[in-house]
């Protein structure tokens, strides 16, 4: 019974983290699916989302607003707006001019952008990590009083529900809306889509904006969950999310969701049963192994190299 409780605790923790990874991974996978580049600066956009949310929360609290759902919703909106604008601007400044050049050029440009954004926030807000107030605390506890207690906090429930809403909204948007249909068309064949009168530049911008907005949601959620933010915390999270995207099959949206959950569970199992220090090693090793043995991921389509 104890073991089962301990296992379920790791499972819950893993799914919590994993669902936020999935939110970030969508940004990678959508961009890759359409223009075939790794948006290296995506982790930084997520970090900026977390910072904006924290600024909004602190600002609203200072104004004397006390109703929690309102604070959260306003903070979420602020973070999404700032992150999306950032995503749009980054694409415009750093990626659009180099689109279609040799594969490494957009990637190097993206790395430069990532370093730039990290230091932008670093210079503006300092390098120290800043505490994120725990707005949602408490939770359910299971298990007898003397043994191991499994807990499911309200924060974790919030993360699940928010992620679920975002994912459903995204799926509906991609499958039903006009822009979503255009997105799918562009990702299948960019040249053909533009011949058929789709404004591909607008769709590519839209992809960046959607990805950035979801990353901002993840930023708010993970910031609250971990309890602090610092300018470097986007980097590792971005790498993990990229791993999740590759794991699920890059370019596939359901794949990113699946990959995020699997990666989160794998990580929390490692820190639960082996050692917390090696959880990053596990996810990077997982990434290397997948790329070596199944580069298309779990749900991805094989890519044919054309001459």
């Amino acid at each position, binding site marked *: 019974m104890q073991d089962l409780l301990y296992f379920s605790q790791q499972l819950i923790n893993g799914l919590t983290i994993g669902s936020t990874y999935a939110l970030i991974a969508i940004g990678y996978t959508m961009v890759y699916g359409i223009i075939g*580049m*790794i948006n290296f600066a995506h982790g930084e956009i997520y970090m*900026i989302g977390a*910072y*904006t949310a*924290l*600024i*909004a929360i*602190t*600002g609203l609290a*200072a104004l004397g607003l006390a109703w929690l759902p309102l604070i959260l919703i306003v903070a979420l909106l*602020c973070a999404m707006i*700032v992150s999306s*604008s*950032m995503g*749009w*601007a980054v694409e415009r400044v*750093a990626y659009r001019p*180099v689109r279609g*050049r*040799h594969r*490494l*050029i*957009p*990637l*190097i*440009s993206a*790395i*430069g*952008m*990532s*370093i*730039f*954004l*990290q*230091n*932008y926030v*670093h*210079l*503006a*807000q*300092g390098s120290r990590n*800043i*505490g*994120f*107030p725990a707005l949602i605390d408490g939770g359910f506890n299971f298990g007898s009083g003397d043994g191991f207690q499994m807990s499911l906090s309200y924060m974790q429930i919030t993360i699940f529900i928010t992620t679920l809403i975002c994912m459903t909204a995204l799926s509906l948007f991609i499958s039903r809306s006009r822009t979503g249909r255009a997105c799918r068309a562009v990702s299948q064949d960019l040249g053909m889509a533009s011949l058929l009168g789709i404004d591909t530049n607008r769709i590519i911008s839209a992809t960046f904006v959607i990805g950035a907005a979801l990353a901002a949601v993840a930023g708010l959620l993970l910031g609250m969950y971990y309890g602090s933010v610092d300018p470097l915390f986007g980097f590792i999270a971005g*790498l993990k999310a*990229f*791993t999740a995207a590759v794991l699920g099959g890059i370019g596939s949206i359901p794949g990113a969701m699946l990959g995020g959950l699997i990666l989160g569970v794998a990580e929390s199992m490692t820190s639960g049963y082996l050692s917390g*220090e*090696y959880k*990053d*090693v596990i996810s*990077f*090793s997982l*990434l*290397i192994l997948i*790329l*070596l043995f199944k*580069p298309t991921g779990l749900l991805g389509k094989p890519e044919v190299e054309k001459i």
Partner: protein
Amino acid sequence: MAANNFRHALFCAIITLIISYPIIGFNLEAQGINVTLTGADATTITMVFLAAVIVFLFQLFREQVMGALRGIPSPFPEAKNEPMAENKRAKIESWVLTGIVVFALFWPFLVSRGSVDLATLVLIYIMLALGLNVVVGLAGLLDLGYVAFYAVGAYTFALLSQYLGISFWLALPIGALLAALFGLVLGFPVLRLRGDYLAIVTLGFGEIIRILLNNWTTLTGGPNGIGGIPDPTLFGMEFGRRVKEEGNTSFHETFGIAYSGEHKVIFLYLIALVLAVFTALVIRRFMRMPVGRAWEALREDEIAARSLGLSRTAVKLSAFTIGAFFAGFAGTVFASKQGFISPESFVFLESAIILAIVVLGGMGSQIGVVLAAIAVTILPELAREFSEYRMLIFGAAMVLMMVWRPQGLMPMRRIHIELKKQE
């Protein structure tokens, strides 16, 4: 059209405000567990609005501005007159290079200790950048975990000297060969991956090495690092005030001169100089050998190169291994210069800096890379008040280079034959 332009300019200006005002205009301050928010001072806020206005005006008059910019003659004029004959140019170039090396040999005796120390660091970066230039510039393999091989070299020396008491001169080839071995072992499985996947895998590998160094406390000392790494000796002569090891003599006593701390610094500088020149010469040879041609052929067109019978794995692997070898070299020198190493020195940012040097210098071009290494290391030292903006400028420079001049400041020039146009 004009109205459309105006709307676009307004939109861009608003976006500029949205992405800069919340982050720059407010300061989060942690006081204990409480976080407070303060507004930034008036100048900062004015700057933010000024930036938005500039973006607005630029977008509004984009056509005119770009037109005016095109009118300015380029600072790098294309060769106007008849280009110099290839052999003549090569001769001049080699004389100039020899002159620079000779100057670099005597230079440390004229300047202060601090500048010599900085110059040693520059030389280490030159070695690293030349090595990475083989991998990224010539072979076209984006390696984001290059710093891992640097770490392997540094830690090899540190551990060997700590446990076995091995000296610098023996550790130098061992460290480089071990790094090359790491490159070979890592490269073997990953080199069949496509360009951007390869970049991410090498990045993951670099992080794994760093995390292992950080957590394997019993062997590497974890985050505390390893200290007390011995200085190199000159034919058994030590550079310290007192001789540490039995059987060694000290440099100043042998030559009967007064002890000075500068001897050691200058000696290290000279070692680094010799190794950097060695690196440059070896790689220069490689570039002209069949394998060097094969690197570039594979970079330019993989399918064509393979159909001409080049083995993709062998060619890529050789580039990867040689790059790793020189990183190991640089790592050993770095360990003995610092006397202390810790995983802190081998973070991803270091890889990114080396990559930035290669990109700025012009991928593939050796002289460009050397100049970029000097600029990137020395400029932040000269402008200390701007040093916190260093990485910001780096990032921006990388983006701008890719947008405007992806071939770098001094692009590689191939020896080639030009067919004369018939009159």
